[in-house]
């Protein structure tokens, strides 16, 4: 009987000790909930207004999923390596995940492999060159850039149903090194080709290909000059009509000079910066008309009002561009859902941090075609104008 009693007591003691451990652990563990994740956002010119919706989305997801966003202050990146080194720094300083929009999609395989081994990686806006074996270790959240290109082309065609044979088309973009830019061009030309239209020139605003710089400052493959030129030439653009920004003056100057030399009727901008530059150029022409400058050729209607000198179409997201659209400087604008992109990027990053073994999956976000009339349509209001502070 003594032995049984002994066993009984031992059993009860073990139960009690277990109970103590479990409840103490839950008390302590429960109160601290999940870990807070540090997510760094690395994008070019991070303080620019064009990121407002994107960051709003990221912050929103951070609040929902118990993460902290660190928006790294940046200016222009010289090249992809520049951007990757900033990302590396962030990881060294304790970032659990990195959300980034790459400035170049070429030669990125090694760097992406390296990074996705050290931290969770979410690419936005554009995808990049990667090895097959690291699929699932990072994710790309971007709009369907090819379709955006097509949408741009369609917007142009919509307003020129009779034909584009007499219209000159100019293309302007910030960089040609990203897959996004290339896909948009593909989409655009696929549509234009139907009407047998082509571009007169293509301006690349990015100053990286500056001849003043020492050679070897950038990788051969990232030189928009080489593969970019090849790419553009495949669309029928001759070498001299691929205009790279080698001037020290600001971007508007290049556009002005090019336009003066070879004016166009339609200007298609492939991204937010180039769209803004285009719209500002348009405003300049208007101003010049008002001040009766002879810098440009104008056409006026019977009331003496200036007939639109250029039709500007483009992809954009910043409030500036929206207001240009609202004021009629831009005809039609393709707006990707930047808020959603930022939100989903953070959401996926946190999901990966919590379940390290499940693969990350890409996601495509929507875009909308907005023109001057539809800016204030009820649904578009919420889409275009974020209410978050």
């Amino acid at each position, binding site marked *: 009987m003594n032995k049984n009693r002994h066993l009984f007591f031992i059993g009860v003691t073990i139960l*009690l*000790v277990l109970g103590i451990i*479990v*409840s103490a652990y839950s008390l302590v563990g429960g109160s601290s909930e999940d870990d807070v994740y540090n997510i760094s956002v690395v994008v070019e010119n991070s303080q620019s207004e064009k990121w407002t919706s994107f960051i709003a989305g990221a912050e929103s997801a951070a609040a929902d999923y118990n993460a902290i966003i660190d928006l790294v202050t940046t200016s222009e990146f010289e090249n992809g390596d520049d951007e990757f080194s900033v990302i590396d720094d962030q990881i060294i300083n304790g970032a659990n995940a990195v959300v980034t929009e790459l400035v170049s999609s070429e030669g990125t395989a090694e760097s992406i492999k390296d990074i996705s081994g050290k931290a969770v990686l979410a690419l936005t806006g554009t995808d990049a060159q990667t090895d097959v074996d690291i699929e699932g270790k990072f994710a790309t959240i971007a709009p369907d850039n090819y379709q955006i290109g097509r949408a741009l082309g369609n917007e142009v065609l919509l307003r020129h149903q009779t034909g584009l044979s007499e219209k000159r088309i100019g293309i302007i973009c910030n960089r040609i090194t990203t897959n996004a830019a290339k896909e948009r061009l593909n989409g655009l030309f696929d549509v234009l080709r139907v009407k047998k239209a082509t571009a007169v020139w293509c301006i690349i605003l990015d100053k990286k290909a500056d001849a003043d710089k020492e050679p070897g400052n950038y990788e051969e493959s990232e030189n928009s000059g080489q593969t970019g030129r090849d790419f553009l030439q495949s669309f029928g653009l001759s070498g001299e009509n691929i205009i790279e920004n080698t001037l020290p003056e600001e971007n508007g100057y290049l556009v002005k000079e090019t336009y003066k030399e070879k004016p166009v009727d339609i200007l298609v901008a492939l991204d937010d910066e180039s769209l803004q530059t285009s719209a500002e150029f348009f405003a300049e022409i208007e101003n010049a008309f008002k001040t009766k400058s002879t810098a440009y050729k104008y056409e006026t209607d019977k009331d003496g009002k200036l007939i639109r000198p250029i039709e500007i179409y483009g992809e954009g997201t910043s409030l500036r561009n929206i207001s240009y659209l609202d004021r009629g400087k831009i005809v039609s604008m393709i707006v990707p859902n930047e*808020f959603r992109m930022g939100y989903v990027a953070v959401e996926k990053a946190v999901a990966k941090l919590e379940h390290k073994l499940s693969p990350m999956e890409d996601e495509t976000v929507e875009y909308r075609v907005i023109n001057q009339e539809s800016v*204030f349509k009820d649904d578009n209001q919420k889409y275009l104008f974020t*209410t978050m502070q």
Partner: protein
Amino acid sequence: MYQRFEGRSRQMMTDNSLLMLSRTTDSIEDYLRRMRRISDAMYYDIIKDMDFESEDLSSEINLLYEANKDNLVSFALFASNGDLISAAPIALQKEMANVTEQNWFTTAFNKMENLHFSTPHVQNLFMDETDYRYHWVISLSRAVDLNYGGKPRMGVLLVDMNYETIQQMLEGVNQANSSQYVYLITGNGQLIYHPKAEQISLGIHDENFAQAAGYDDGVYEESFEGEKRIVVVDTVSYTGWKLVSVTPVRNFYLGMKSTRYFVILVAALTGLAMIIMNQLVTWRVTEPLLKLNESIKNMEAGNSDSAIYIGGTYEVEHLGKTLQRSLDEINRLMKDIVIEQEEKRKSELDALQSQINPHFLYNTLDSIVWMIEGEHYEEAVFMITQLASLFRVSLSKGRTIIPIEDELRHAENYMNIQKVRFKNAFVMNYEIDPEIKGCLTVKLIVQPILENAIYYGVKNMDEDGEITLKGYRKDDDIFIEVIDNGYGIPSEKLPYLLTEDKRASKNGSGVGLINVHKRIQLRFGDSYGLHIESEPDEGTKVTIHLPAIPATEENREMLEKGGLRYE
């Protein structure tokens, strides 16, 4: 008890929500009231009195705007065709605005008497080349009568309220709680403010506005997307807006979970402490007691060499030690008894032996034969009668305890015989106090001493050998002394005489002083016995010390059994 606590907790949280909600509703109502007053002031105090043909509204409208510009984005008056009549801050009307198609405009005309509050929207009215900003506003509009030189025209007075004000008001409330939140909808279920508005429009988040709009003021428990929550609804007056507070029920459980675990923790700790205490008591007290009991049982069973358990608390240990000591004492006493019984037996045996000392008998009979041969018939008869008496006492019917009278007679008999044998080589004196004769003694104690007195004392003295037998009572003691004036006992031998040492030679009857001494002590106790004093060439005195015990049958029986030793 746990459930009661849960219920109370819930009640408290609900009350809290109600309080917070009604306060917020009051704030919103205050704000809206102020805005309405601005519109009223503008209309009733200014517009009604104005002739728009000749007068200009700008200064008044600016004044009113300036006074309230923290909460206003714009103040504007439009004609019924959508043309801007006056606005503050001053701005140009946007061409593409299509004022007449905007909601606030059409609603104002639908119900002309009332003020109308719109849902939040981006202001689309004015054009400013330098200002690229856009404002989220809630439009307060009303149809107004305008006087144009006596001709009445319709217009719409618009107060565009800064949405930020309401937003900040509600964000402030929402920040206070973690998973509890508050949102604002119109009576139709259209969203005015929700902390996750963006997520809802993206489709990431969902909220049951339609259902909430249907609720009257009060507290409801509902289930939405698999989650149970407490919903409190309060209506904002005039607008019909509903302020809805949502508290997920798991909020309680989070706190409850902590409490539950805390309770379990405390209970478990207490239980563990009790068990430890119990074990402590058992280990220190109960078990030792049980072990002690076991060892006592062992001892009772007769395993005399089993040790008593010593251990446990001080008290139990003390018990054990005492018991052990008692046991040891008993063992010792038992051993003593055995030894003593053995002694007695030996002594008795010796005494028995002395009763029929062959040498003595042989010598005496020899003397008698010699007397008869020498025709000393009277001496022979004397010798034989003395001998007979001596043996009669020696036997004493087998008794060990006899009256001192008999013992003395025995001594006398012996001395008479010896006197004849030793041809009166010595003189015998008797100084016996008659009162001692009536007391008891162990038999055969005097004769061995007399024997010693003869053989060691006076035998080799040529003349004047003298032996005195003295007996007297002193209080409760009886002293019998045998004094001789012989050679005495050599001082080396003296201490050994009463021991069993071989240095004390035995002669004569072979009984010896030690035997006598032991027999006396065995019967009467250690305080009695023999005492020897001797001076070489002077003499020896041997004193027998006895207790004075009257020779009653009772006393005799008692002494016969065991003596005085164990009383």
